[in-house]
């Protein structure tokens, strides 16, 4: 930052410094403006060559919307893995539960049509409940063992959704899911991606602010202590049982929350949308982005999604159009896992803390009057 500002003319540098101090003490505002800026910048960037040549602006906006969904998912998983240090390999299950919650109560399938907004909250609550249900029996487990149980849970949920076809329409999935309309004010139109884009950015802002506040709270400090040394945390008087359940609940609530939006955006949910692959790519995003760093894991997920869904796809199309021998027959989308794998191996060898390592800020508890000590 200082390197940047030192090159600016003095008045601008002063302004930058003032803004920096302002947003350091008012982080929620800072997050809000950063996301607004990002929201404006991304569509503009997508017009600039070479990005503009790849696909239409609406296609880009759709891609950004889904990429932000995965960012939110990674930020939620980061609470469990990055903050509390609990390895969860079945995170997609909570994403599925949120999606199916909305699908069941807002589609022609059961012919119930509840409005989107309250279900957004219900989805988060259902996520949290299942988070606690998964967390409670696994409290004594650590590391590898916890990973195996969560992996199992991540498999059970989609398999149940697949087989309970009376309630979930099985493999076909539930389609025709309602749009997130604001009754009497605004109706979403599936051909117009912009309102979805704005909504998902608003959800991102909410999630990031909530997660940052939690990180700085007593709950967040307890998570950090457990991650660093569970025995020392217990000896310091932290109720590790409650603390870990809180981490599972918050992580799962975020997945449920964004799961509801995901269902509304795609208008369909099916079991194969929530498989192990989703859990693993979210985990990769957390590891690549930098475990514990909220912004880092968000960017990690965003970039991973864009690479797989835009660049690899366009690469395939490009080579097919140019009909270059051999290359035109390769489906580059198939290569995404090779890329993940290679990226993860390289990261673990070269930069195990992630692209954006979590930097520890010195934190203090605030006293009763709300002033920092």
């Amino acid at each position, binding site marked *: 930052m200082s390197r940047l500002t030192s090159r600016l003319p003095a008045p601008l540098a002063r302004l930058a410094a003032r803004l920096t101090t302002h947003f350091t003490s008012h982080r929620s505002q800072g997050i809000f403006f950063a996301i607004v800026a990002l929201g404006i910048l991304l569509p503009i960037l997508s017009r600039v060559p070479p990005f503009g040549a790849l696909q239409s602006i609406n296609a880009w906006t759709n891609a950004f919307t889904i990429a932000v969904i995965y960012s939110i998912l990674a930020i939620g998983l980061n609470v469990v893995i990055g903050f509390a240090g609990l390895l969860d390999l079945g995170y997609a299950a909570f994403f599925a539960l949120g999606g199916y919650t909305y699908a069941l109560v807002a589609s022609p399938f059961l012919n119930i049509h509840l409005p989107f907004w309250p279900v957004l909250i219900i989805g988060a609550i259902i996520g949290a409940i299942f988070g606690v249900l998964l967390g409670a029996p696994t409290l004594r487990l650590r590391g590898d063992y916890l990973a195996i149980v969560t992996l199992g849970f991540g498999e059970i949920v989609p398999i149940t959704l697949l087989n309970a076809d009376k309630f979930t329409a099985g493999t076909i999935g539930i389609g025709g899911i309602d749009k997130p309309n604001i009754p009497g004010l605004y109706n979403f139109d599936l051909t117009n991606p912009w309102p979805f884009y704005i909504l998902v950015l608003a959800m991102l802002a909410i999630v990031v602010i909530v997660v940052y506040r939690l990180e700085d709270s007593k709950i967040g400090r307890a998570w950090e202590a457990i991650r660093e040394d569970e025995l020392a945390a*217990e000896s*310091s*008087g932290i*109720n590790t049982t409650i603390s870990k359940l809180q981490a599972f609940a918050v992580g799962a609530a975020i997945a449920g929350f964004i799961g509801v939006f995901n269902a509304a955006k795609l208008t369909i949910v099916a079991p194969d949308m929530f498989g192990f692959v989703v859990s693993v790519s979210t985990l990769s995003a957390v590891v690549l982005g930098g475990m514990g760093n909220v912004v880092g894991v968000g960017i990690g997920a965003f970039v991973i999604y864009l690479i797989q869904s835009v660049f690899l796809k366009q690469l395939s199309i490009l080579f097919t159009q140019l009909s270059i021998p051999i290359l035109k027959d390769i489906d580059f989308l198939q290569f995404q896992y090779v890329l993940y794998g290679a990226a993860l191996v390289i990261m673990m060898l070269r930069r195990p803390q992630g692209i954006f390592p979590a930097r520890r800020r*010195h934190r203090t508890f605030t*006293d*009763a009057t709300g002033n920092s*000590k």
Partner: protein
Amino acid sequence: MALLELKDVNTYYGAVHALRGVSLKVEEGEIVTLIGSNGAGKTTTLRTISGLERARSGSITLNGQSIESLPPHQIVALGISHAPEGRRVFARMSVRENLEMGAFLRRGADVEKDFQKVFELFPRLKEREFQAAGTMSGGEQQMLAIGRALMAQPKILLLDEPSMGLAPILVEQIFDIVKEINQRGTAVLLVEQNAMMALGIAKRGYILQIGEVTLGDDAAKLANNPKVKEAYLGV
């Protein structure tokens, strides 16, 4: 009534019978030391008191209130602080944050006073207030572990091997501070390999052998007991 009392405590690790009917007392204002060779059950005794292990039978009381079935955080809240073996400071947190974690269950202005008290006892920690705990020397980390335990305002402090891996001069410093803490009104249950030094500052002591208390006496008498001398004092 004793401040802390263990009666016939039995603790198991799976099928291993680690504590075989341990009974001991710590009175208000005392330093009591537990001496024994490796694997005698010293650490297990402390872990059982602080709730990190469950006693299968027997009773543990603090001021007459039975605590053997309480979880660790409630035991801390009642006034038993445990500075665990191997220091176990939160390596990536600063010294100040570590101390804050020790005061996790407390709130209000008197926490600030306790920072000052800990910094008085350990001026080194004041110097390193904002340094990451993991980057400090072993002795400093031990000071921090004790300071962190004190931040919970314990009635009794459980210290597990505070001298482990420290240079002799540092060991002496640590023991002086333990005495000082005790003089300020906190009872101490001290587990030590360095039996000579432990008996030097303790009022009473217990000898632990393969999970059983085989001897309990005034520290001075234990230090002069020929059997103890031969087995633990290396004389």
